[in-house]
C-alpha cells in the first residue's frame, strides 16, 4: 500500500509514469471484474477506461482511506451496475454480431477440465446480476461482505444472502446442464 501512496502522490504531481504504473498494476483485476460482471469485453473496456478517466480527474480531491485497488474495484462495480441498468432500458434486439473472445488466464487444470471451465464461465453470466455481483466482488475482487455492503448502502445480511443464492444458482445451472 505504501507503493500505492507514493504512486498516487507522484500522479498528483503530474507524473505520467506513476499513472501508467497504477494502470499496469491493476488493469487485469479491473478488466477481469468488469468482464465477469458484464460478460462483454467491449463494455468491460469502456468501464475500465471511464473509471480511470474519472480517477485521474478526481485524484487530487478524494482521500484514500483504504487500498487503491479496493477503491478502483468498487468504482468498476458501481459503473458496471449503471451500465447494466442502462442496458435494460435499451431496445431489445440489438444483439452484437462481433463478440470478442476473452483471453482468459490459464489456471491449474487439476480441479477442472477445459469443458467444465467453459460451462462454468457461461453459467456465471446467467446468475442474476445482483447475486453475481456479490459473488464476483467477494471471490474475485477479494472484498469482504462488509465492504460490499458499505459500497452499495445495503445491509450486510442482504449481501450475504445474495452471495449464498448466487452460488446455489450457479450450482443448479451447472447441474441442470449435466442432467441434460
Amino acid at each position, binding site marked *: 500500500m505504501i507503493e500505492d*501512496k507514493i504512486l498516487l502522490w507522484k500522479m498528483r504531481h503530474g507524473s505520467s509514469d506513476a499513472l501508467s504504473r497504477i494502470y499496469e498494476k491493476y488493469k487485469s483485476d479491473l478488466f477481469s471484474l468488469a468482464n465477469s460482471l458484464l460478460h462483454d469485453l467491449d463494455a468491460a473496456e469502456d468501464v475500465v*477506461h471511464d473509471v480511470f478517466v474519472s480517477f485521474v480527474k478526481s485524484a487530487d480531491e478524494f482521500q484514500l482511506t483504504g487500498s487503491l485497488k479496493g477503491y478502483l474495484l468498487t468504482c468498476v462495480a458501481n459503473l458496471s451496475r449503471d451500465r447494466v441498468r442502462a442496458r435494460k432500458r435499451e431496445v431489445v434486439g440489438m444483439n452484437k454480431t462481433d463478440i470478442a473472445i476473452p483471453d482468459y*488466464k490459464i489456471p491449474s487444470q487439476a480441479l477442472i477440465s477445459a469443458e467444465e471451465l467453459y460451462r462454468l464461465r457461461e453459467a456465471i453470466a446467467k446468475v442474476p446480476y445482483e447475486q453475481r455481483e456479490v459473488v464476483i466482488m467477494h471471490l474475485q475482487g477479494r472484498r469482504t461482505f462488509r465492504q460490499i455492503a458499505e459500497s452499495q448502502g445495503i445491509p450486510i445480511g442482504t449481501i450475504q444472502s445474495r452471495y449464498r443464492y448466487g452460488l446455489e444458482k450457479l450450482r443448479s445451472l451447472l447441474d441442470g446442464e449435466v442432467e441434460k
Partner: protein
Amino acid sequence: MKPIDWFEKLIRDLHVLEINTSAEMDRRILHDILKVQKECKTTKLAGTQPDIWRIIMKSSITKLAVAAIIVAIGLGILAIIDTGSKSGVAWAEVAKNVEASRGVIFRARGTSLRDPNDDWPNGYRIFWRSTAVSRMDVYRGGQIYRTIYLDYDGKTTIGVLHDAKKYSKEAMSDQTAHADKGWSDPQGLLNLGLSLEHHTLGQKTINGVLCEGIEGTGPDGSTGRVWVGVETGYPVLVEIEGVDGSTGTMDQFQWNVDLSAEGVEPEIPADYEPL
C-alpha cells in the same frame, strides 16, 4: 453435485475468471488517461497517513518471504516426525536451530505477475527479523529505496521513503504486534508442517556450501524448496513458487544474529519530511 466450496475455490484461488488485457486496449486507455492527466495538471499533495502495517503485509514479496520462512520451519518440524532421515542433515536439529535463532538476516528476491513494483530481477530486499523487531530495506538499481521498520516491543512502525525523502512514524496496535510475531509460533508452524507433503532433493553445493534439500507443497498449492547446510544445520537457500507463477528466493542468510546489538532502527535524515 459439486459442493459450494468447489466454486469458491475455482473463482477465488484458481482465478478462472481472470483475463488478460490486450496491448491494443492498453494503448487506447493509456493514451486517453495520460491525455486527461496532462490537461488536469494537478499539484495538490495528498494529506493521508499511510498504514504501514497493511502496506507491509499486502506486499507480495513480504508474503512470500514470510511464507518461505514458515515453509522452511514447517518442513523442518515435519521432518522430526518423519521416520528417520538417512541423509547428512539432522532435520530435527534444523528446526531447533531455526527456532532458537535470536534473529536472522536474509536477502529476498522475487517476482509476482500481479505487482510490477517488485522490480524483478534487478531489485531485492534485505530482511532483519526477530521476535522483537523487523526491518526491510528495498533496493532498486543498487540504491536503497524504502525502509520499513517494526518494533514489536516499542509498538512502533517507521516507513522511510528514500526516493521521496519522506518518512512516516506511527503506533502499532497490540493486534498487529501479536499477528506478526506469529511467524515464530512453534505450535502454529507445527500444525502447518503437519499439513505439508514433501520429498527430499538430495545434496548439492550452493556457493561452496554442501547442502541438502527438501521440496514440499503448501496448503495453497505453492511449492517450497529448502536447502540446508549439512555442516551448519541452518537454511541456506529457500525457493518458493506460487500457483499464480510468482516466485520468491531467499538467500544470504545470517542466522542467530543478536539484532538488539545491530542498530537496525533506521536513522531518518534531517532533510526528510513527514508523509
